């Protein structure tokens, strides 16, 4: 007769895939809020994105409040 039992074990160590995924989120989010000057939307809108500065204007108040150089 066989019986199965569920036990909980603690496994230490951080998966590399999680570190890579979170590092990408970190870099992308930081760039969007802190440093974008039209770069991201220029992929779609070309040079006009550097004039419109849509993300810059949208994140303007947080840039100042969080200490990033804004303009």
């Amino acid at each position: 007769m066989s019986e199965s039992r569920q036990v909980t074990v603690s496994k230490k160590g951080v998966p590399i895939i999680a570190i890579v995924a979170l590092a990408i989120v970190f870099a992308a989010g930081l760039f969007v809020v802190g440093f974008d000057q039209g770069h991201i939307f220029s992929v779609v809108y070309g040079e006009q994105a550097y004039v419109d500065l849509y993300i810059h204007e949208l994140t303007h108040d947080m840039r100042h409040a969080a200490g990033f150089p804004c303009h």
Partner: protein
Amino acid sequence: MRTSLFIIIVLASGAFAGLIHGVTNLVIVEPYLDQAIGIENQNLFASGEEEDTLEFWIEYEGYRSWQKSGQVLAGVILGTSIGSLFGIVFALSKYSLPGRNNVKKALVLAGIMWLTLYFIPFLKYPANPPTVGDTDTVVLRAMLYVLFIAVSGFAALGCYKLSKKLENKKKIMALVGYAAFISAVFVVMPNNPDKVSAPMDLVDGFRIVSVIGVSSFWVSIAVILGLLWNRFDPEKIAKTNSHS
């Protein structure tokens, strides 16, 4: 460790702490931003670039409302971003941090990261409201700011690694080493090249609420991630043992 659960609680805690940061800023920072932008508007009227008309103010109010909503959205994005870094460092250093539960451990780590990645760089390159800052120097200022944060962060990491190799009584030397190194960097790195032309009571008040806002994020991220880690513990894995 359950990878997806770990990522989810890190992203959720970052986003929620960022939301708290954004809402805090909305309440305490926005009045200073409005005051500073008001000075910019007066300068525009004085130079003739804009006219003080009803149409201007209608457009301005609409634009500012949109920017204020962006404050909260940017808070969530920035919180998720910085929270991701915090989650990585917390997971890697959890067993080295003092504290009997995850909330206390997270608060200790948040304190260290607040000091080394935010407050010390802030002392060198403090936040400025609109009206302060020359557009021509923004790239230089961004590079200096990021460089200082990176140097401070890696110096703290290096001193932590050094402290692990030192005996208990000598661990304080790592802290002294960080303090000496970052003090030297503080002196050597160039200052913000822009002159502060806005009234100093506005600038000082803005800087104080800016620090309170960012600090609200670091406290929030520590408490939220610590609580979520206690509740869901991504390191626990259920295994089924079969035997006859």
